[in-house]
């Protein structure tokens, strides 16, 4: 039973355009959501996060939106750059839990010059 899903395995975007990566979850007990970026042969790197009490968090070119009623979050990258090409993982944390993160399968983003 996959509680965090990233339904698009890959996404290709032109440089300068917006990249939108999507993530759906099923458990309403999640209280915190994170996005990680992973380059080949490296570990995941924390990118941006959002608490379940918010609906938007912005950091430079990266914005995460949370729609609790739809159990959906998305990561927007504007403008996209070739260096953004990587695998992006969505992760969710249970409220009051041990910090355990439940990850999605990842979406591979390719930004073409």
């Amino acid at each position: 039973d996959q509680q965090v899903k990233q339904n698009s395995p890959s996404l290709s975007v032109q440089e300068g355009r917006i990249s939108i990566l999507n993530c759906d979850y099923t458990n309403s007990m999640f209280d915190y959501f994170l996005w990680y970026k992973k380059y080949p042969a490296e570990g995941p790197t924390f990118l941006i996060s959002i608490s379940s009490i918010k609906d938007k968090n912005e950091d430079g070119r990266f914005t995460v939106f949370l729609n609790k009623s739809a159990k959906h979050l998305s990561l927007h990258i504007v403008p996209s750059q070739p260096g953004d090409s990587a695998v992006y993982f969505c992760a969710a944390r249970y409220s009051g839990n041990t910090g355990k993160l439940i990850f999605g399968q990842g979406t591979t983003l390719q930004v073409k010059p």
Partner: protein
Amino acid sequence: DAMVIQNPRYQVTQFGKPVTLSCSQTLNHNVMYWYQQKSSQAPKLLFHYYDKDFNNEADTPDNFQSRRPNTSFCFLDIRSPGLGDAAMYLCATSGRSGYQETQYFGPGTRLLVL
């Protein structure tokens, strides 16, 4: 720079031969996690340490063990590796005072079982 270090980056072992993967951190974090990530799948938590307290996930096979001799180091022991244990093993840390949301990952160790 403060960081999470994993050694070795690549490990080849034989079927059934015990293997140990290493993780160290300079972040002085309380919590250290071990994740297993198989090809094209989501990272999956195996277990974690909160200081010296070990917390095993219910579905982690008995074949996997862990040791944390001090704050900085944590080891993953695979007692009898099978072909299905070939994966990327990721170590992560969080929190100087309890569990925190952001986990910081090492580069991973890719394990190959022959």
